[in-house]
């Protein structure tokens, strides 16, 4: 019996370490579940809707829940990201079009410092609200691993479309129009 004590202990320790590794990897999450659900047309609710994020360049905070009832185009960006710079005028143009239809673009900065983000907003004449996700927890709950990424959220708070790369103006216009006209 005692002959097996040490090998059994070694196996138990190895199994424990493997379980720990598995737990750590699982905690990283995955973007595939949201993408797959949206592709199937089984629109998932936007995660962390109650999470209050600080408003860039201002006091106070805002959450997705505060915007419930509106169509929200959530754009994750950073000032250092070239594609984000390229799509900023497209988003601003769209904002001016949709604001009258009870819809809004909502920028969320990710992996960026506030002074650089504020400079970006000023230079790009962005008029839509921009929040800061300092910890990255809110953005990562959408499966985001890089910037830019865009999620279109309907009036019921469900993700109905997404782009995990630089968006095109036509895609944005058509998608938002489709969501605006869908029955509430």
């Amino acid at each position: 019996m005692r002959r097996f004590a040490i090998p059994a202990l070694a196996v138990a320790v190895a199994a424990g370490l493997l379980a720990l590794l598995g737990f750590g990897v699982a905690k990283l999450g995955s973007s595939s579940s949201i993408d797959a659900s949206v592709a199937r047309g089984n629109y998932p609710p936007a995660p962390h809707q109650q999470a209050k994020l600080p408003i860039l360049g201002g006091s106070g905070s805002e959450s997705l829940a505060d915007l419930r009832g509106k169509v929200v185009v959530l754009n994750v960006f950073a000032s250092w990201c070239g594609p984000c710079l390229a799509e900023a005028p497209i988003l601003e143009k769209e904002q001016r079009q949709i604001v009258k239809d009870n819809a809004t673009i909502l920028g969320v900065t990710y992996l960026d410092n506030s002074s650089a983000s504020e400079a970006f907003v000023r230079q790009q004449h962005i008029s839509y609200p921009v929040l800061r996700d300092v910890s990255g927890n809110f953005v990562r709950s959408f499966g985001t691993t890089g910037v830019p990424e865009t999620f279109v959220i309907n009036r019921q708070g469900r993700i109905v479309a997404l782009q995990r790369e630089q968006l095109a103006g036509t895609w944005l216009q058509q998608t938002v129009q489709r969501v605006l006209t869908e029955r509430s």
Partner: protein
Amino acid sequence: MTRSALHLTRASALRLTLIALIAGCALAPAALATTQPPRASLTDIENDVMCTSCREPLAVAQSPQADSERAYIRGLLAQGLTKRQIEQNLVAQYGEAVLGKPPASGFNLTVYVLPPVILAAGIGILLFTLPRWRRRARTAPDRGSAPPTGFDPAEAARLDQELSQFRG
């Protein structure tokens, strides 16, 4: 007090003064260091923080985000902030993921707790098993000198005879 004793005392005093002077010179920078925080440098900070998008140390990261982070640190250095203040500022901007060493809380505790636990367990296993292995080795019969078991003397003689034929 005799003349030689006086001489000895003077020599001792001189030696003590010299030791005190050398010790004072050696400890002065350390004392200064404790009163005045060391001036931070970009190289020093780069080694201890991460490029948060590329998930590698900022010192080796080459990406637009890394460049942006470096520019931000340079701005903080220009304000004369200490390394600790800069790190706190970076955490406020980029979150705790910016730190090279994760904070010792939650799941991150395993990073600090596991290595010493595994080391202690390894030492414990060795301390337990090594004496047993040595005891077993001591008590085991010397296999080199023991005659082969089950080897008939008649067969041994025949083997010797056959081997002698080969040797010629």
